[in-house]
Protein backbone atom coordinates (compact mmCIF):
# COMPACT_ATOMS: atom_id res chain seq x y z
CA UNK A 1 0.00 0.00 0.00
CA UNK A 2 2.65 2.48 1.07
CA UNK A 3 4.76 1.41 -1.87
CA UNK A 4 1.92 2.34 -4.17
CA UNK A 5 1.35 5.83 -2.87
CA UNK A 6 4.98 6.63 -2.12
CA UNK A 7 5.76 8.54 -5.27
CA UNK A 8 2.62 10.66 -4.97
CA UNK A 9 3.33 11.84 -1.47
CA UNK A 10 4.50 15.44 -1.39
CA UNK A 11 6.02 15.37 2.05
CA UNK A 12 6.55 12.82 4.77
CA UNK A 13 6.13 15.30 7.56
CA UNK A 14 7.89 15.24 10.87
CA UNK A 15 6.57 18.21 12.78
CA UNK A 16 2.84 18.36 13.51
CA UNK A 17 2.59 22.05 12.73
CA UNK A 18 3.95 21.31 9.28
CA UNK A 19 1.11 19.11 8.13
CA UNK A 20 -1.53 21.59 9.24
CA UNK A 21 0.35 24.34 7.46
CA UNK A 22 0.52 22.33 4.27
CA UNK A 23 -3.16 21.50 4.36
CA UNK A 24 -4.28 25.07 4.96
CA UNK A 25 -1.87 26.46 2.34
CA UNK A 26 -3.23 24.08 -0.24
CA UNK A 27 0.17 22.51 -0.59
CA UNK A 28 -1.45 19.08 -0.29
CA UNK A 29 -4.99 17.87 -0.82
CA UNK A 30 -5.00 15.05 1.65
CA UNK A 31 -3.03 14.23 4.74
CA UNK A 32 -2.70 12.10 7.80
CA UNK A 33 -2.39 14.39 10.79
CA UNK A 34 -2.96 15.03 14.46
CA UNK A 35 -6.64 15.17 15.42
CA UNK A 36 -6.32 17.86 18.04
CA UNK A 37 -4.81 20.38 15.70
CA UNK A 38 -7.16 19.42 12.90
CA UNK A 39 -10.09 20.17 15.17
CA UNK A 40 -8.66 23.54 16.06
CA UNK A 41 -8.07 24.73 12.50
CA UNK A 42 -11.41 23.40 11.42
CA UNK A 43 -13.07 25.37 14.19
CA UNK A 44 -11.12 28.41 13.05
CA UNK A 45 -12.73 28.06 9.66
CA UNK A 46 -10.02 26.43 7.59
CA UNK A 47 -11.31 24.61 4.52
CA UNK A 48 -10.50 21.18 5.89
CA UNK A 49 -12.41 18.32 7.36
CA UNK A 50 -11.26 15.06 8.81
CA UNK A 51 -12.38 11.71 10.05
CA UNK A 52 -11.11 9.37 12.77
CA UNK A 53 -11.62 6.34 10.58
CA UNK A 54 -8.48 4.13 10.78
CA UNK A 55 -6.83 6.63 13.08
CA UNK A 56 -4.18 5.59 15.56
CA UNK A 57 -4.73 6.57 19.15
CA UNK A 58 -1.74 7.48 21.29
CA UNK A 59 -2.14 7.80 25.01
CA UNK A 60 -0.08 10.08 27.22
CA UNK A 61 0.76 9.15 30.78
CA UNK A 62 1.37 11.00 33.96
CA UNK A 63 4.84 10.05 35.14
CA UNK A 64 6.54 10.68 38.45
CA UNK A 65 10.28 10.08 38.28
CA UNK A 66 11.71 7.85 40.95
CA UNK A 67 12.97 9.90 43.88
CA UNK A 68 11.04 13.00 42.83
CA UNK A 69 11.10 15.71 45.49
CA UNK A 70 7.41 16.49 45.35
CA UNK A 71 6.08 13.00 44.94
CA UNK A 72 3.29 13.57 47.42
CA UNK A 73 2.00 16.70 45.69
CA UNK A 74 2.25 15.01 42.34
CA UNK A 75 0.24 12.04 43.53
CA UNK A 76 -2.35 14.38 44.99
CA UNK A 77 -2.59 16.27 41.72
CA UNK A 78 -3.15 13.11 39.74
CA UNK A 79 -5.78 11.92 42.20
CA UNK A 80 -7.49 15.31 42.00
CA UNK A 81 -7.43 15.47 38.24
CA UNK A 82 -7.37 11.97 36.82
CA UNK A 83 -9.94 10.54 39.13
CA UNK A 84 -12.44 13.28 38.37
CA UNK A 85 -14.40 12.86 35.10
CA UNK A 86 -15.74 16.41 35.27
CA UNK A 87 -12.27 17.84 35.11
CA UNK A 88 -11.46 15.62 32.16
CA UNK A 89 -14.48 16.93 30.34
CA UNK A 90 -13.52 20.49 31.14
CA UNK A 91 -9.97 19.88 29.89
CA UNK A 92 -11.26 18.60 26.57
CA UNK A 93 -13.34 21.73 26.13
CA UNK A 94 -10.13 23.79 26.16
CA UNK A 95 -8.07 21.53 23.97
CA UNK A 96 -9.66 18.84 21.83
CA UNK A 97 -7.74 15.89 23.25
CA UNK A 98 -9.82 12.88 24.19
CA UNK A 99 -10.23 11.96 27.86
CA UNK A 100 -9.19 8.44 28.88
CA UNK A 101 -11.73 8.34 31.66
CA UNK A 102 -14.87 7.26 29.80
CA UNK A 103 -17.12 8.69 32.49
CA UNK A 104 -16.03 12.11 31.30
CA UNK A 105 -18.35 11.75 28.30
CA UNK A 106 -21.30 11.82 30.66
CA UNK A 107 -20.53 15.48 31.14
CA UNK A 108 -20.42 16.39 27.44
CA UNK A 109 -22.85 17.24 24.66
CA UNK A 110 -23.05 15.01 21.58
CA UNK A 111 -21.38 17.65 19.45
CA UNK A 112 -18.51 17.83 21.87
CA UNK A 113 -18.14 14.08 21.92
CA UNK A 114 -18.03 13.80 18.15
CA UNK A 115 -14.84 15.87 18.03
CA UNK A 116 -12.89 13.73 20.44
CA UNK A 117 -10.89 10.66 19.44
CA UNK A 118 -11.65 8.66 22.56
CA UNK A 119 -15.42 9.11 22.35
CA UNK A 120 -16.88 5.58 22.06
CA UNK A 121 -18.18 6.17 18.53
CA UNK A 122 -14.75 7.29 17.33
CA UNK A 123 -12.67 4.90 19.38
CA UNK A 124 -14.13 1.80 17.86
CA UNK A 125 -13.08 2.88 14.37
CA UNK A 126 -9.46 3.38 15.42
CA UNK A 127 -6.43 1.38 16.47
CA UNK A 128 -4.53 2.07 19.56
CA UNK A 129 -0.81 2.25 19.44
CA UNK A 130 1.00 -0.55 21.27
CA UNK A 131 3.56 1.33 23.32
CA UNK A 132 5.17 -1.82 24.63
CA UNK A 133 5.75 -3.16 21.15
CA UNK A 134 7.05 0.22 19.95
CA UNK A 135 9.31 0.44 22.94
CA UNK A 136 10.96 -2.77 21.83
CA UNK A 137 10.93 -2.21 18.09
CA UNK A 138 11.26 1.55 17.64
CA UNK A 139 14.89 1.51 16.54
CA UNK A 140 14.42 -1.36 14.15
CA UNK A 141 11.24 0.10 12.65
CA UNK A 142 12.75 3.53 12.28
CA UNK A 143 15.64 2.06 10.37
CA UNK A 144 13.33 0.06 8.17
CA UNK A 145 11.23 3.11 7.61
CA UNK A 146 14.19 5.28 6.64
CA UNK A 147 15.57 2.62 4.35
CA UNK A 148 12.18 2.42 2.68
CA UNK A 149 11.84 6.18 2.45
CA UNK A 150 15.22 6.69 0.84
CA UNK A 151 14.73 3.92 -1.66
Amino acid at each position, binding site marked *: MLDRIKSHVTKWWKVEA*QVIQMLTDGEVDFAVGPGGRMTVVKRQGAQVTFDYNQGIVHGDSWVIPRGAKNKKNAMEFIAWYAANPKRHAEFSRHIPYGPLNTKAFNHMSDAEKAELPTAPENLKRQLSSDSEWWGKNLVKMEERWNAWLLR
Partner: protein
Amino acid sequence: MPGSSASAVTAALLRGVERREEARRWLLVLPAGLFVGVLLFFPLLRIVSLSVWDPIFTLRHYGHAFQDPVFYRVLGVTFKVSLLTTVGCLVLGYPVAHLMAHARPAVANFLMTLVLVSFWTSLLVRTYAWMVLLGRRGVINNLLLAVGLISEPLPLMYNLFGVLVGMVHVLLPFMILPLYSVMKGIDRSLMLAAQNLGAGPFRSFLWVFLPLSFPGVTGGCLLVFMISAGYFITPALLGGRTDMMMGQLIELEVSQLLNWGYASALATILFVVVALLFLAYRRVATLRLPSGAS
Protein backbone atom coordinates in the same frame (compact mmCIF):
# COMPACT_ATOMS: atom_id res chain seq x y z
CA MET B 1 86.14 43.00 26.82
CA PRO B 2 83.76 45.04 28.95
CA GLY B 3 82.05 46.50 25.87
CA SER B 4 81.02 43.18 24.42
CA SER B 5 79.77 41.79 27.71
CA ALA B 6 77.68 44.93 28.16
CA SER B 7 76.17 44.49 24.74
CA ALA B 8 75.50 40.84 25.54
CA VAL B 9 73.58 41.95 28.61
CA THR B 10 71.62 44.45 26.53
CA ALA B 11 70.81 41.80 23.98
CA ALA B 12 69.58 39.48 26.73
CA LEU B 13 67.41 42.26 28.13
CA LEU B 14 65.95 42.99 24.71
CA ARG B 15 65.20 39.32 24.20
CA GLY B 16 63.40 39.35 27.53
CA VAL B 17 61.30 42.31 26.47
CA GLU B 18 60.47 40.60 23.21
CA ARG B 19 59.45 37.42 24.98
CA ARG B 20 57.27 39.29 27.43
CA GLU B 21 55.53 41.07 24.56
CA GLU B 22 54.83 37.78 22.87
CA ALA B 23 53.55 36.29 26.13
CA ARG B 24 51.21 39.25 26.46
CA ARG B 25 49.84 38.67 22.97
CA TRP B 26 49.14 35.05 23.87
CA LEU B 27 47.45 36.16 27.07
CA LEU B 28 45.07 38.29 25.05
CA VAL B 29 43.78 35.34 23.05
CA LEU B 30 43.21 33.33 26.21
CA PRO B 31 39.50 34.24 26.52
CA ALA B 32 38.85 33.25 22.92
CA GLY B 33 40.88 30.08 23.46
CA LEU B 34 38.92 29.15 26.55
CA PHE B 35 35.66 29.92 24.84
CA VAL B 36 36.44 27.69 21.89
CA GLY B 37 37.99 25.06 24.13
CA VAL B 38 35.03 24.80 26.44
CA LEU B 39 32.23 25.24 23.94
CA LEU B 40 33.65 23.52 20.92
CA PHE B 41 36.56 21.28 21.67
CA PHE B 42 35.20 19.71 24.81
CA PRO B 43 31.79 18.82 23.35
CA LEU B 44 33.57 17.42 20.32
CA LEU B 45 35.62 15.13 22.52
CA ARG B 46 32.49 14.20 24.39
CA ILE B 47 30.78 13.21 21.15
CA VAL B 48 33.71 11.07 20.13
CA SER B 49 33.78 9.40 23.52
CA LEU B 50 30.01 8.82 23.45
CA SER B 51 30.42 7.02 20.17
CA VAL B 52 32.89 4.48 21.55
CA TRP B 53 31.85 4.09 25.24
CA ASP B 54 28.44 2.48 25.54
CA PRO B 55 28.84 1.67 28.39
CA ILE B 56 32.24 0.03 27.82
CA PHE B 57 34.55 0.54 24.86
CA THR B 58 32.86 -0.62 21.70
CA LEU B 59 33.01 -0.02 17.96
CA ARG B 60 29.58 -1.45 17.34
CA HIS B 61 28.08 1.92 16.51
CA TYR B 62 30.62 2.35 13.74
CA GLY B 63 30.08 -1.20 12.61
CA HIS B 64 26.38 -0.50 12.53
CA ALA B 65 26.86 2.60 10.43
CA PHE B 66 29.09 0.94 7.89
CA GLN B 67 26.68 -1.96 7.45
CA ASP B 68 23.58 0.18 7.15
CA PRO B 69 22.54 1.05 3.59
CA VAL B 70 20.63 4.03 4.99
CA PHE B 71 23.92 5.45 6.25
CA TYR B 72 25.46 5.31 2.79
CA ARG B 73 22.39 6.78 1.17
CA VAL B 74 22.32 9.64 3.63
CA LEU B 75 26.04 10.24 3.31
CA GLY B 76 25.64 10.29 -0.45
CA VAL B 77 22.76 12.75 -0.27
CA THR B 78 24.75 14.90 2.15
CA PHE B 79 27.66 15.21 -0.24
CA LYS B 80 25.49 15.63 -3.28
CA VAL B 81 23.50 18.45 -1.69
CA SER B 82 26.62 20.08 -0.26
CA LEU B 83 28.41 19.93 -3.58
CA LEU B 84 25.48 21.31 -5.54
CA THR B 85 24.96 24.04 -2.95
CA THR B 86 28.63 24.96 -3.23
CA VAL B 87 28.47 25.09 -7.01
CA GLY B 88 25.28 27.15 -6.84
CA CYS B 89 26.81 29.61 -4.41
CA LEU B 90 29.93 29.92 -6.54
CA VAL B 91 28.01 30.51 -9.75
CA LEU B 92 25.78 33.12 -8.15
CA GLY B 93 28.33 34.63 -5.79
CA TYR B 94 31.31 35.07 -8.09
CA PRO B 95 29.78 37.81 -10.26
CA VAL B 96 28.46 39.59 -7.18
CA ALA B 97 31.86 39.59 -5.52
CA HIS B 98 33.42 40.66 -8.81
CA LEU B 99 31.05 43.60 -9.05
CA MET B 100 31.63 44.57 -5.43
CA ALA B 101 35.39 44.45 -5.84
CA HIS B 102 35.23 46.80 -8.81
CA ALA B 103 32.47 49.14 -7.68
CA ARG B 104 33.02 52.55 -6.13
CA PRO B 105 33.37 52.33 -2.33
CA ALA B 106 29.86 53.67 -1.72
CA VAL B 107 28.32 51.17 -4.10
CA ALA B 108 30.45 48.37 -2.71
CA ASN B 109 29.31 49.19 0.81
CA PHE B 110 25.71 49.20 -0.29
CA LEU B 111 26.10 45.83 -1.97
CA MET B 112 27.85 44.50 1.11
CA THR B 113 24.87 45.57 3.20
CA LEU B 114 22.54 43.74 0.82
CA VAL B 115 24.65 40.62 1.13
CA LEU B 116 24.56 40.84 4.89
CA VAL B 117 20.85 41.67 5.14
CA SER B 118 20.05 37.99 5.05
CA PHE B 119 21.92 37.60 8.33
CA TRP B 120 19.45 39.91 10.01
CA THR B 121 16.67 37.36 10.14
CA SER B 122 16.79 33.87 11.51
CA LEU B 123 17.45 30.86 9.39
CA LEU B 124 14.03 29.46 10.20
CA VAL B 125 12.22 32.60 9.10
CA ARG B 126 14.15 32.68 5.87
CA THR B 127 13.39 29.05 5.19
CA TYR B 128 9.69 29.61 5.83
CA ALA B 129 9.84 32.60 3.52
CA TRP B 130 10.99 30.25 0.79
CA MET B 131 8.08 27.97 1.57
CA VAL B 132 5.74 30.88 0.94
CA LEU B 133 7.46 31.58 -2.36
CA LEU B 134 7.97 28.06 -3.64
CA GLY B 135 4.76 26.40 -2.52
CA ARG B 136 2.25 24.79 -4.85
CA ARG B 137 0.08 27.83 -4.23
CA GLY B 138 3.06 29.99 -3.46
CA VAL B 139 3.93 33.34 -4.98
CA ILE B 140 5.95 31.97 -7.88
CA ASN B 141 3.49 29.30 -8.94
CA ASN B 142 0.54 31.66 -8.61
CA LEU B 143 2.32 34.24 -10.71
CA LEU B 144 3.26 31.78 -13.43
CA LEU B 145 -0.26 30.36 -13.43
CA ALA B 146 -1.78 33.83 -13.62
CA VAL B 147 0.46 34.82 -16.51
CA GLY B 148 -0.42 31.56 -18.19
CA LEU B 149 3.14 30.27 -18.55
CA ILE B 150 2.18 27.04 -16.83
CA SER B 151 -1.10 25.25 -16.49
CA GLU B 152 -0.22 23.26 -13.41
CA PRO B 153 1.86 24.26 -10.39
CA LEU B 154 5.55 23.39 -10.72
CA PRO B 155 7.06 21.20 -8.01
CA LEU B 156 9.46 23.78 -6.61
CA MET B 157 9.58 22.49 -3.07
CA TYR B 158 9.79 19.20 -1.18
CA ASN B 159 12.47 18.10 -3.57
CA LEU B 160 16.16 18.64 -4.26
CA PHE B 161 15.44 21.91 -6.03
CA GLY B 162 13.77 23.38 -2.97
CA VAL B 163 16.62 22.27 -0.73
CA LEU B 164 19.17 23.84 -3.05
CA VAL B 165 17.30 27.11 -3.36
CA GLY B 166 17.03 27.42 0.41
CA MET B 167 20.60 26.40 1.11
CA VAL B 168 22.18 28.50 -1.61
CA HIS B 169 20.28 31.47 -0.31
CA VAL B 170 21.37 30.95 3.25
CA LEU B 171 24.99 30.18 2.42
CA LEU B 172 25.59 32.69 -0.37
CA PRO B 173 27.18 35.29 1.96
CA PHE B 174 29.72 32.70 3.08
CA MET B 175 30.80 32.41 -0.53
CA ILE B 176 30.71 36.10 -1.37
CA LEU B 177 32.70 37.35 1.61
CA PRO B 178 35.90 35.35 1.06
CA LEU B 179 35.64 35.88 -2.70
CA TYR B 180 35.26 39.61 -2.21
CA SER B 181 38.15 39.94 0.20
CA VAL B 182 40.47 38.10 -2.19
CA MET B 183 39.28 39.98 -5.27
CA LYS B 184 39.67 43.28 -3.49
CA GLY B 185 43.32 42.45 -2.99
CA ILE B 186 43.95 41.83 -6.69
CA ASP B 187 45.95 44.72 -8.06
CA ARG B 188 43.82 46.41 -10.68
CA SER B 189 46.82 47.35 -12.75
CA LEU B 190 47.26 43.64 -13.48
CA MET B 191 44.09 43.67 -15.54
CA LEU B 192 45.24 46.85 -17.28
CA ALA B 193 48.58 45.20 -17.97
CA ALA B 194 46.85 42.12 -19.40
CA GLN B 195 44.79 44.27 -21.74
CA ASN B 196 47.78 46.31 -22.69
CA LEU B 197 49.63 43.13 -23.57
CA GLY B 198 46.91 42.12 -25.99
CA ALA B 199 44.34 40.21 -23.95
CA GLY B 200 40.73 41.23 -24.44
CA PRO B 201 38.43 41.50 -21.43
CA PHE B 202 37.55 37.80 -21.48
CA ARG B 203 41.09 36.53 -21.81
CA SER B 204 42.35 39.00 -19.20
CA PHE B 205 39.79 37.55 -16.85
CA LEU B 206 40.58 33.97 -17.72
CA TRP B 207 44.34 34.27 -17.56
CA VAL B 208 44.81 36.79 -14.80
CA PHE B 209 41.79 37.56 -12.65
CA LEU B 210 40.37 34.08 -12.36
CA PRO B 211 43.58 32.37 -11.23
CA LEU B 212 44.30 35.18 -8.80
CA SER B 213 40.84 34.91 -7.32
CA PHE B 214 41.35 31.19 -6.82
CA PRO B 215 42.21 31.44 -3.10
CA GLY B 216 38.84 33.12 -2.60
CA VAL B 217 37.14 30.39 -4.60
CA THR B 218 38.86 27.76 -2.48
CA GLY B 219 38.01 29.50 0.76
CA GLY B 220 34.41 30.18 -0.16
CA CYS B 221 33.81 26.67 -1.48
CA LEU B 222 35.33 25.06 1.59
CA LEU B 223 33.31 27.22 3.91
CA VAL B 224 30.03 26.63 2.08
CA PHE B 225 30.67 22.92 1.65
CA MET B 226 31.52 22.37 5.27
CA ILE B 227 28.54 24.30 6.57
CA SER B 228 26.28 22.53 4.06
CA ALA B 229 27.47 19.10 5.13
CA GLY B 230 26.17 19.72 8.63
CA TYR B 231 22.90 21.31 7.54
CA PHE B 232 19.63 20.12 8.86
CA ILE B 233 16.77 22.60 9.14
CA THR B 234 16.58 23.68 5.51
CA PRO B 235 16.61 20.19 3.99
CA ALA B 236 14.15 19.02 6.64
CA LEU B 237 11.68 21.75 5.73
CA LEU B 238 12.20 22.15 2.00
CA GLY B 239 13.34 18.66 1.10
CA GLY B 240 11.40 15.67 -0.09
CA ARG B 241 11.43 12.04 0.90
CA THR B 242 14.87 11.20 -0.42
CA ASP B 243 16.64 14.39 0.60
CA MET B 244 17.68 13.26 4.04
CA MET B 245 21.03 14.66 5.07
CA MET B 246 23.34 13.47 7.79
CA GLY B 247 22.20 16.22 10.14
CA GLN B 248 18.62 14.99 9.87
CA LEU B 249 19.61 11.40 10.53
CA ILE B 250 21.58 12.44 13.58
CA GLU B 251 18.70 14.54 14.83
CA LEU B 252 16.39 11.60 14.36
CA GLU B 253 18.65 9.27 16.29
CA VAL B 254 18.92 11.73 19.14
CA SER B 255 15.42 13.15 19.43
CA GLN B 256 13.30 10.19 18.33
CA LEU B 257 15.35 7.19 19.27
CA LEU B 258 17.54 8.55 22.09
CA ASN B 259 20.32 6.61 20.44
CA TRP B 260 23.17 8.84 21.59
CA GLY B 261 25.93 6.39 20.86
CA TYR B 262 24.92 5.86 17.24
CA ALA B 263 24.21 9.56 16.72
CA SER B 264 27.67 10.39 18.08
CA ALA B 265 29.26 7.84 15.79
CA LEU B 266 27.47 9.39 12.80
CA ALA B 267 28.56 12.87 13.88
CA THR B 268 32.14 11.71 14.27
CA ILE B 269 32.18 10.07 10.86
CA LEU B 270 30.77 13.20 9.23
CA PHE B 271 33.36 15.29 11.01
CA VAL B 272 36.23 13.07 9.93
CA VAL B 273 35.08 12.86 6.32
CA VAL B 274 34.68 16.63 6.06
CA ALA B 275 38.05 17.17 7.74
CA LEU B 276 39.74 14.78 5.31
CA LEU B 277 38.09 16.53 2.42
CA PHE B 278 39.28 19.84 3.77
CA LEU B 279 42.86 18.65 3.98
CA ALA B 280 42.73 17.15 0.51
CA TYR B 281 41.30 20.33 -0.96
CA ARG B 282 43.89 22.47 0.77
CA ARG B 283 46.59 20.30 -0.66
CA VAL B 284 45.22 20.65 -4.16
CA ALA B 285 44.79 24.38 -3.67
CA THR B 286 48.37 24.91 -2.55
CA LEU B 287 49.62 22.84 -5.44
CA ARG B 288 47.70 24.98 -7.87
CA LEU B 289 49.05 28.16 -6.33
CA PRO B 290 52.81 28.04 -5.99
CA SER B 291 54.80 30.39 -3.81
CA GLY B 292 54.57 33.13 -6.40
CA ALA B 293 50.91 33.86 -5.84
CA SER B 294 49.84 36.30 -3.21
